[in-house]
């Protein structure tokens, strides 16, 4: 029995293709990329420059701006996704009850849409000229002037956040809905009998019990928003100027537009480190809370 379950040849046949692909496409390039950050050059050849890329990174104002923007974007969008998603989930569970399937599906739908299509759609939605888009039209109708949304950093940021939330809230709502449905009905019932009103019920029982889901949603959200690329590339292209340029876009431009492969690899490393730090930070604080309780 054991010899069959541990048959070396079968293991190799089943494991090797996946392992090979994964190693060649992900593991080796990651190490290679680490190495590249000590070099300068492009397809014609590389020269070893030691820590030059890193000292350049320390002084690079555009990089600092990109880091700042990435963190800011991540923080705002994650907060929005968790908060709005949770509100939607509560709405599904406590207001719509069992008839929420249709609304759930509808709010979820934008999640499956490609971000390029969504970005192009909303670019027109917020447009000023030559056609006044629906958003500005509504502004005009209630007596406000049109806003050139993509003309200034702040308004561009607002549009980016709105689009990100529009296309992802349904997903987070669903995630947290799944968590809320797991809360035993008896617990809520007994609290109700003890005289808890709606808000108390949510604060004392629902919220503490949904903490694990909130935590995994937060980690997931940070993990995705820190790597944001498609939406911003298609919506603002990082503009105006470089005010809405995330790290991913800066890395992409450095590498493929300016052909500076070594420095591109360094920026990618910075992004990876930030992703790791944020995840560890959230995990760490969550663990601390649990030991306290």
């Amino acid at each position, binding site marked *: 029995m054991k010899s069959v379950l541990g048959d070396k040849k079968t293991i190799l046949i089943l494991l090797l293709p996946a392992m090979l692909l994964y190693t060649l496409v992900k593991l080796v390039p990651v190490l290679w990329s680490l190495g590249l950050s000590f070099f300068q050059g492009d397809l014609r050849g590389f020269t070893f420059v030691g820590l030059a890329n890193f000292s350049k990174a320390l002084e690079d104002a555009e990089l600092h701006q990109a880091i700042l923007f990435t963190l800011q974007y991540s923080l705002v969008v994650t907060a929005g996704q968790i908060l709005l998603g949770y509100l939607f989930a509560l709405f599904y569970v406590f207001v719509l009850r069992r008839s929420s399937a249709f609304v759930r599906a509808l709010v979820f739908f934008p999640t499956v849409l490609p971000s390029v*299509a969504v970005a192009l*759609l909303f670019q027109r939605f917020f447009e000023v000229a030559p056609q006044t888009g629906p958003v500005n039209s509504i502004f005009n109708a209630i007596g406000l002037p049109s806003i050139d949304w993509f003309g200034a950093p702040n308004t561009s940021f607002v549009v980016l956040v709105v689009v990100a939330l529009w296309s992802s809230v349904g997903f987070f709502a669903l995630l947290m809905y799944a968590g809320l449905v797991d809360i035993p009905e008896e617990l809520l019932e007994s609290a109700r009998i003890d005289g808890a009103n709606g808000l108390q019920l949510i604060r004392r029982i629902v919220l503490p019990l949904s903490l694990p889901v909130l935590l995994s949603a937060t980690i997931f959200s940070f993990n995705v928003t820190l790597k944001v690329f498609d939406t911003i590339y298609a919506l603002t292209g990082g503009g105006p100027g470089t005010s809405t340029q995330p790290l991913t876009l800066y890395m992409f431009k450095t590498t493929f537009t300016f052909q500076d492969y070594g420095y591109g690899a360094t920026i990618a490393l910075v*992004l990876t480190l930030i992703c790791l730090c944020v995840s560890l930070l959230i995990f760490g604080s969550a663990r601390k809370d649990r030991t306290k309780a």
Partner: protein
Amino acid sequence: MATITAPQDVFIKPGRKPPQRARRWTRSRLKRAIPAWIGIVVVLAIGIYPVFWLFVSSFKTQREFVQESTFAMPESWNFDNYVEALTTGDLARNFLNSVIVTAPSLAAILVFGLGAAFAIEVMVWKGRNLTLLLFLSGIMIPGQMILVPLFIAYFNMGISGTYLPMILTYAGLGMPLTVFLMTAYFRSVPREIFEAATIDGASMLRSFFSIGIPLVRNALFTVGLVQFLSIWNDLLIALTFTTNPDLRPIQAGLLNFSGEYGQVNYGPLFAGVFMNVFTLLILFVLLNQRIMKGLAGGAVKG
């Protein structure tokens, strides 16, 4: 007989909740229902309106875009914009490219990923936990990190001008999540099934094909959907590895669409975006339950 079975039925189906009393539309109930309905209407409007507006706009002429109100209905419902998007805009080519790239990547991800998951979870050998960990470590690392080395590698291999770089990259990148989810599904399958098959004389390869695959068929479908969406909707890989515009998949092609004409040619642009949305709308309507479960499941576990 009847007297025995009747009470038994009550025990067989223990209703978790008492039967609901008939709803009466009292004033307090109405008061609670109205905010709920307002909420639903607002949510639906925000969710549907942009897509509806996109649909309507895709039939407008350039003149209507510039001169008429943005809320106006198009004057005629002909498909000129769609024809132009598909032919002059080359969206048909992009669409075909997407299919050419997505199908083999997806097949490789599912077949190889499933095999690896089976080897790791069902079979017994030293170092399988380490192997799983190795696969999982890939989930955290951003795709940007591997772009430069892969670009150089594909260039040196001389396959830069083909579909291969995209297919290989998508297949490799899809592996961690697939292996991770599929091992989780195999974990819930009782070991005894495979032991029994072994006693009956089946080799492990035979067990894999005749028992393993059929048992996780539903899960495989879910994982396949999740991976399909991430490949079909990807921009980063597509943009990096297609220096030749003829190879561009749909997302990268769509992007070129708004700028390539110099001044934005609204009608075809909207038609192109809507076709893109419509493809996924159809998919979503057909498979809504599975997609929702799949994406949520993938996130909670991954």
